[in-house]
């Protein structure tokens, strides 16, 4: 099947029920998207499918065929996306493992909501787990990203 990932077409030979996460990581070698739980419980695997945040660990690759998939590698060429800028400005990351998913979820939020309030941030981000304790910084960084222009 053919997948469009970050604007580039890839032909992959994968079973229809193989999760998109493992196609991205193990077949396409794009390891920015992370495995955390495999059940859509932690959000580390979040990517955009046609602009919507999706848990790639529990999305069959067949569902993604014919869509535009965006991963952390495709968010910007140079860490210039407003969410990445905000994350850097506010020194959000710690171990960093969950941050690809956090950033992708935040990017989808600020793209759809130019001025997300606390409730909107909570709704969009509470499905993503961070064990290091960056939640406080994430809340502030999402607001900063919105100020920087969402996109």
């Amino acid at each position: 099947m053919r997948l469009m990932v970050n604007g580039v077409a890839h032909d992959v030979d994968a079973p229809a029920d193989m999760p998109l996460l493992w196609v991205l990581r193990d077949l396409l070698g794009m390891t920015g998207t992370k495995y955390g739980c495999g059940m859509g419980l932690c959000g580390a695997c979040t990517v955009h499918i046609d602009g919507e945040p999706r848990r790639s660990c529990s999305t069959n690759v067949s569902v993604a065929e014919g869509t535009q998939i965006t991963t952390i590698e495709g968010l910007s060429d140079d860490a210039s996306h407003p969410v990445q800028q905000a994350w850097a400005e506010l020194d959000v990351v710690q171990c960093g493992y969950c941050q690809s998913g956090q950033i992708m979820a935040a990017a989808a939020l600020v793209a759809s909501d130019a001025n997300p309030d606390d409730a909107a941030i909570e709704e969009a981000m509470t499905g993503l787990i961070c064990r290091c304790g960056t939640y406080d910084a994430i809340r502030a960084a999402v607001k900063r990203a919105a100020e920087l222009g969402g996109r």
Partner: protein
Amino acid sequence: MRTPKAGRPDSTPSPETAGNSAPSRRDFLKTSAVAGGGLVIAFTVPGAKRLAMAGIVPTGAFEPNAFLRIGTDDTVTVLLAHSEMGQGIWTSLPMLIAEELECDWSKIRVEHAPAAPEYAHTAYGLQATGGSTTTWSEFDRYRQAGATARAMLVQAAAERFGVTPSSCRAENGAVVADERRATFGELAEAAAALEAPESVPFKDPKDWTVIGTPRMRLDTPEKTTGRAKFGMDVQFEGLLTAVVANSPTFGGSVRSFDATDALAVPGVRHVVQVPSGIAVVADHFWAATEGRKALKIEWEPGRAASVDTDALRAEYLELAATPGVTADEAGDVAGALAGAATTIGGEFSVPYLAHATMEPLNCTVRIGSDGCEIWTGTQFQTPDQGAAAAILGLAPEQVKLHTTFLGGGFGRRANPASDFVSQAVHVAKAAGAPVKTVLTREDDTRAGYYRPAFVHSARLGLDADGRPVAWDHVAVGQSILAGTFFEAMLPENGIDPSSVEGLTDSPYLAEFPNRRVGVHTPDPGVPVLWWRSVGHTHTAFAVESLIDEAAHAAGRDPFEYRRQMLANHPRHLGALELAAEKADWGSPLPAGQARGIAVHESFGSFVAHVAEVSVEDGRIRVNRVVSAVDCGIAVNPMTIDAQLKGAITFGLSATLHSSLSMKEGRVQESNFHDYQVLRLSGMPAVETHIVPSTDPPGGIGEPGTPPIAPAVANAVFALTGRRLRDLPLAL
């Protein structure tokens, strides 16, 4: 991780090794030229072979290596002897070097050092990250690396300029003398040819321009773009992926298995038996997990096959009613309790907890004809290297261990049993191919090496004026050190220091003239390990809940009562008073909210939290935490802020959500739906404050965790009148 420090009654590492003395030992420092030009500074660590007797520290000739490499392109590469797992040493260790080196901060590059004897921990004697020790244990060594390099660069510049070294100064990556200027890169080759100086004095702390200033993380670019490589992200041509079917109960083994169906799954290459179970080795993770579902295995139950955590708790409570082995005793506790005007206390319990790092455990192994390469996120390079070498019949130096970024550690990746590394080595060996062995989230949750479950039973007696009279305390729980290569570190009475740290050394306990602490150390066969702040996770909960209860029984304000008890402990007091002041302790809160306070020393630092809580739909909600720390010299205030917030978050998961249970030996929880952790919706606003200090640095990764559970429990008492003694707290 606990500090294996022989001869100390407590397990808390002392920052006493940190200081401002200059290096003077000629043999402490050696330099050598490095291929490609440049200056390499390396140190040996005299007398740091504390664990050589246990046979785990590689011995042999000094191998020149580096904490610091200055390239001819002006880059300054700092090699970390410790593992970056989120705690920020990727930035703070380079700060120590930069302070003395006078380099251009923008030219700093950072790498994990290889596993090698010269990177042994200055206190532990083996390469490891844990016990909140990195900053204080490297405070001198990394500054020395910078100071010595600077002196040699200055010397090289002086020779080039034809002036005396004293007329040159290093600044911002160059050496200047009047109108002459040469960058570090231009001087690197000449500096590498020089003899290392006999002694280089450190800068006076009043001249520091880096230490104590906020510095942004240096690992942000790769961690916001997906480029950061964690162990899970290791890939190369020919690498296979494995998952292992492990015994459903601890200590069990394979009786028989049938791999026929598993081998028929597309992508599955091998099914091999290893000591821990049956490994399915495949082209990729998905095929490996699909193959594992098709395995048929009969298991031989192990000694923990009947463990039931409800029954265990009842057993621990029974034990807690008996004296146990004496850890501390003074006066006549029974007589004084009988004569006390007021008696308070009760039974506290905490469950087993998984570390649940966001990156599940994994390890990649490639075995060659004359050695082995390992890529993994580990906190325990030396033991892991030794374990791999033993399995393969190699010398440790034939095992090349690459430390990747760690997707969280919290102690789980510092395992004396080297469980996930050993398993991966066995899998690669049996498969005859390079293999990345991965634990799924479910495997990771059920793999053991938990924070041990504990029960504390305590009675405190007060006189008619509320003053302390008697404290009778019994703690019941597993030893972390028993059965490991650290067992030799256990004191004669057999009490694991991690069972009583934060209790027997509590300044409150010493205020009770009649006291006894007893300990029982049962062994139900569940593997246990250090979990961020280790024994303090439960001792601080018991101790700070008890003191709060005593304050209320005495009719005193909990903050004022603590101030009085801690009058001779200025660092406790400093943190306590700063947190109370910033939280506006005593001021009214809106209806339905209340504050609780707790202060605790661990890992050489002192942390106080004030928690503000409310109850919504019968559930405890923490709205705000105001935190103050005295961690000695604050190397990077941004790191300290982040680590306090992280430690609070980690502790709040244990305070409100997380618990592992076992029935018939099987762990009941498996993933984040039933092993719950704090999420963003439950995250309080957190405010952190640092007590100004010139004391040597203490730890910061762990000390914020112990006082959060009691601060919240004490707030719940203030709000509801209910004294909750079991974690996670539930109304």
